[in-house]
């Protein structure tokens, strides 16, 4: 499953640490999500989507 978390974060000029603090997770977790090594839970995926003011499907793509 691919995601656009890194691109969205960089568009908004956020560091991994800043995004991690906003979502209540560690910087390592943001890094793992961006690299596709960790698939976040539904609550965390929703929190990421809300943070970027998008819906989950606009960030995570199961088809690719």
């Amino acid at each position, binding site marked *: 499953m691919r995601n656009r978390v890194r691109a969205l974060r960089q568009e908004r000029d956020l560091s991994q640490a800043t995004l991690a603090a906003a979502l*209540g*997770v*560690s910087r*390592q977790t943001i890094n793992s999500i961006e690299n596709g090594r960790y698939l976040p*839970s539904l609550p965390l995926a929703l929190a990421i989507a809300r943070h970027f003011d998008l819906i989950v499907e606009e960030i995570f793509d199961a088809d690719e």
Partner: protein
Amino acid sequence: MPTNDTKQRSAQQWVVPGVAIAGGIAYLIAGIVGDDLGFGIFGLVVMVTVTVVVLAMRGRSETLKGLLDRRDERIVQLDLKATAFAGNVLIGAVLIAFVVEIARGQDGSPYGILGAIAGVAYLVSLIWLRVRE
């Protein structure tokens, strides 16, 4: 104003240090009761040292911090997987030791009891989780 969730997480970060200190005190009491004060003091010192090191390092390690405060879902999952792996290794070792003891003509104790405890704990946990989730 702290929420219940914040209070719970704040309390949660003291579970591991609390268990470690309680273990150290148990070692000390066992040493005193078993007339081996040296073991008791050594055990307490080791557990207190581990606790102090863990608490001191949590500001430098996201993993340690996550293991203590349980806020990061990925680290909580890593902890669960590592715990399951360690449990499987332990159960495997107990079963091997049980078989070896039987082969040596012994009754397999205490490994048979330990294996039975692990099996019952697994079944109870599975049934509980099945009902709950």
